[in-house]
Structure formats: C-alpha cells, structure tokens
C-alpha cells in the first residue's frame, strides 16, 4: 500500500518529468525562433521541475534513511524553502515571458515554524499574484484566438493557481486534507501541460 508520503514523491517525479519536457519544447522553440518569450518559459519550467525534483529527492531520502525526528523536521523545512524559492523565480520568469508577448507541514520548533509560516505565506502570496497575472494573460489570449490548445494551457495555469490558493489556506489551519488537495490539483495542472505537449507532438 502506497502511503501519502510516497504518493507525494511519485506525483512530484511525474510532475517534474512533464515540466522538463515543457521546458525542452520551450528551449527548442527559442533556438528556432530566437523569441525571448520561449527562453523565459523554458527557464521558468526548468526551475519548477528542479524544485519538484529536489523536493522529491529530499523526501525520498527521509523516507528510506529514516533519520532522527529533528533532522526530518529540518530537512522538510529546507525542502519547502527550495521548492518555494524555485516556484517564485519560475512564475516570475513565466510572467515575464507572458508580459513580453502579447509538504505536508510537519510540526517543528515554534520559532522555526513561525519563520517558515511567514516565509511560506509571503512566497505563496507572491506565487498567487504571479499566477493571477499569468492566468489573466492566458485567458486574454484564449478569448482572442479561441483555440483548444490555448484553452489547455489556460486550464493548466488555472489549476496551478487554485493549487497555490489551497496551499496558502492550508498553511494557516495546518489542514492536511486541503494541502493534499492542493497537491492533487497541481498534478492535474501538470497533466493539462502533458495533454498540450501530446497535441504538439502529433502536429501535422
């Protein structure tokens, strides 16, 4: 039976693969067209992927080595910070790209916990605002061209936005189900990217 912990790691790895492929396509598009928007998208997606990978590696290490409780707490805090930092940077890059174009929170030491909540909250607020901008731009593009592929990208970014809003709410109340739901919706968002990539790959 797969535990919730392992489930998070699995979705992180699958998500990272999808993000790496998206980044690869963006880089390929940049090389062919030299349009900077693709370079920003590529860097943004690679950072999101790197964040997911580092998060899953740290969690896998904890899962298999079973270190002392204090070390578990410290590493999960570090993992959260790495993911958060990469996400803020990634969404900033994706937002720049668009503007150029038309863990479960473990109970930790109170001071560390408060600091973590503070940084996490600020980071999540930044992420939400960046994603709001990205969703707005993406929606505008969809309303202009009404293409299915643009809708898929819009749905992907909406899912990421909803996921971050849920994660933000779960930070205050330590609501585990809400946190897991945010993880699930994030994964759904990445699946939308996968659908988009499959459609791109089969383009004739």
């Amino acid at each position, binding site marked *: 039976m797969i535990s919730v912990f392992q489930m998070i790691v699995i979705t992180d790895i699958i998500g990272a693969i999808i993000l790496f492929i998206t980044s690869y396509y963006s880089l390929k598009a940049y090389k*062919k067209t030299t349009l900077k*928007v693709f370079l920003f998208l590529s860097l943004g997606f690679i950072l999101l992927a790197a964040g997911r990978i580092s998060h899953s590696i740290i969690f896998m290490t904890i899962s298999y080595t079973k270190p002392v409780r204090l070390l578990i707490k410290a590493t999960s805090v570090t993992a959260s910070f790495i993911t958060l930092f990469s996400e803020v940077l990634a969404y900033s890059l994706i937002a720049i*790209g668009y503007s150029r*174009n038309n863990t479960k929170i473990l109970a930790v030491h109170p001071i560390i916990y408060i600091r973590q909540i503070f940084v996490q909250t600020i980071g999540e607020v930044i992420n939400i605002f960046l994603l709001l901008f990205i969703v707005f731009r993406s929606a505008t593009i969809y309303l202009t061209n009404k*293409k299915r592929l*643009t809708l898929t990208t819009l749905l992907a970014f909406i899912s990421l936005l909803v996921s971050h809003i849920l994660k933000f709410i779960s930070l205050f109340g330590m609501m585990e189900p809400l946190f897991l739901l945010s993880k699930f919706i994030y994964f759904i968002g990445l699946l939308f990217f996968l659908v988009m990539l499959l459609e791109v790959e089969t383009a004739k």
Partner: protein
Amino acid sequence: MKQRRSKLRILADILGIIFEENGARVTQILYGANLSYDRLVKYLDELKAKELITEKRDDQGARYYLTKKGKDFLKEFKKIEKFAEAFGVQI
C-alpha cells in the same frame, strides 16, 4: 492590422507550398507565399544553401522539391508553431 511575417514563417510557408504540391515551380510558390519575385529568389537560394530544398530543371524550367532535411524542418516547425499557439505566441 496584419502582422509582418517573420523570416522563419516565410521560409516555412515556402517549404509548406513545395510539400503540398509535391514539388513546385516558382510561379506556384509566388502565389502561395505572397512574395515578390526578387525576395522569393533570395529565399529559395537560402533554402538551397541550407539543403532544405533541391532544384531540378526540365524543359518548362525549374521545379523545387523538399529534401529529407527540409521535411524534418517543416515537421519541426509545425510542432513549434503548435507549442507557440498554446502560449499565444505568434511566430
């Protein structure tokens, strides 16, 4: 207002016409790609130099064909075009 086509788009348009016609003459490409003769000749020379097309001559003049490299380029362009479409980017 109609946007200006990028060079990449023009080259892909030319390759697309040659592909659809399964070998095309200059006049066919001229109509399809909506270019002046001088510009078309310049682009055809570039495509030949990049080995994306080959020229074969008969009694009616020159006919252009896609090379394997040209077909691969066109296929790749279509994918990039689709990817760009997903993010609302016009190539």
